[in-house]
């Protein structure tokens, strides 16, 4: 693939804020592609697991037989980004109402770690966050937390000391919603790691 070619970014379209991710992907100059079948994965350079309800999305992955194809996608070295519910699905294990996960980020995801919707909030990323992410406005909606990170997992941004954006190889997990609002830095990072 030549560098000038427009990249195609898949969005898992079982349930969730697929449309918001599609807009963010278009803002960074790529083409969003809804993914519901294993064959759709062959047509994309990177994949987003959107925000939504992780239980609902997990049931869909099971019904559609997509767990193994998604693990293989991760192993193929193509980049992945999971936000909120997507981050839960990328983790090694989910706690507090467990769901089956993909194990592509070596960390524990604690679901609804901040509480119910009345505890949802927005906050800037801590000043010591990695290059370019300090001060990034992060919107948390019934958000999970990532804990027990293995040394392979790099923390790119924190809020109040808790990791909110992490990377392992070409897999990014984000406990907030970079797709809400118009800041495209996280999606640019995803696209930037397409080989």
């Amino acid at each position, binding site marked *: 693939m030549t560098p000038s070619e427009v990249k195609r970014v898949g969005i898992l*379209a*079982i*349930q*969730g*804020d*697929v*449309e*918001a991710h599609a807009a963010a992907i278009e803002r960074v100059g790529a083409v969003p592609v809804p993914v*519901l079948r294993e064959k759709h994965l062959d047509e994309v350079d990177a994949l987003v697991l959107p*925000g*939504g*309800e992780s*239980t*609902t999305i997990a*049931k*869909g992955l099971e*019904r559609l037989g997509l767990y193994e194809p998604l693990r293989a996608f991760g192993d193929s070295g193509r980049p992945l980004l999971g936000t*909120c*519910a997507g981050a839960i699905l990328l983790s090694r294990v989910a706690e*507090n*109402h467990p769901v089956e996960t993909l194990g592509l980020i070596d960390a524990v995801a604690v*679901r*609804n770690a901040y*509480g*119910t*919707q*009345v*505890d*949802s*909030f*927005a906050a800037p990323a801590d000043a010591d966050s990695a290059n370019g992410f300090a001060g990034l406005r992060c*919107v948390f*909606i*019934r958000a999970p937390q990532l804990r027990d990170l293995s040394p392979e997992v790099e923390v790119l941004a924190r809020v109040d000391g808790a990791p909110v954006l992490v990377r392992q190889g070409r897999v990014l997990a984000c406990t907030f*919603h970079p797709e*809400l*609002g118009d800041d495209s830095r996280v999606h640019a990072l995803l696209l930037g790691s397409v080989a």
Partner: protein
Amino acid sequence: MTQKKSGNGAGRTTAEAFEIKVGLAEMLKGGVIMDVTTPEQAKIAEDAGAAAVMALERVPSDIRRDGGVARMSAVSMIEAIQKSVSIPVMAKIRIGHIVEAQLLEVLGVDFIDESEVLTPADDQHHVDKHAFKSPFVCGCRDLGEALRRIGEGAAMIRTKGEAGSGNIVEAVRHLRQVNGDIRAIQALLPEELMARAKQLGAPVDLVRFVHENGRLPVPNFAAGGVATPADAALCRTLGAEAVFVGSGIFKSDDPESRARAIVRANTHWEDPAEVLAASRGLGAAMPGIEMETLAESERLSNRGW
């Protein structure tokens, strides 16, 4: 005590607080929200893939049958349902019942439905939803009603349809009406927006938003009369971004199968072969009501102003 304090000290909604409310509505897109009356039903809904549950004492078809005053559900029932599932829990308040809304906010309910399915507490005014930290969803039949509710602070709009009827015709009417009204506004010239706002009884800034963006400023879901997987797919085909199912699941022969089937049809609404597969072997749907047999006074969708 003044109205200002009605929302548990959250005060007026800032743009940021409103964004967080709408954020949860965004996360529910592409989902099915199911009415449940017990923790066991909530579990069945979650296991079937519901994106949220609506906790209520009686499903709309029973409210319709029993008559009398329908109120917010018992607190203990809502709490038991909150404990039983990890997905968001919604609950209904009577139109204009500020204190029922306060109670649900204290309970930490994820979304409050100010609903025409319950007996209205105020026959002229809806709740000032900006004053609350909890997000609200409200029903509508047309764009003017939708924008009035959003003007009051609703973070999600759904069609009213005709709850408890098992008949999709009203939801279809309301979806077509809202989307037709939106298309008509897009065709207007800027200087025509004020007169249209007056005609719709809607805030002009929201009419301007619709003119510029061709959509509501909050997610637009369907409700009222969904009984089959094909009904859910029809709502999505007509532009609804998610679907509420009330009596349609737990008043059918086989709620587990029907719940799974409606979730499947909703995910794959663009693929008729999938909707067909979801429609097989479900047993009988809930019994439906022909609209002509419902007197105007019996129509729940006429409540709200």
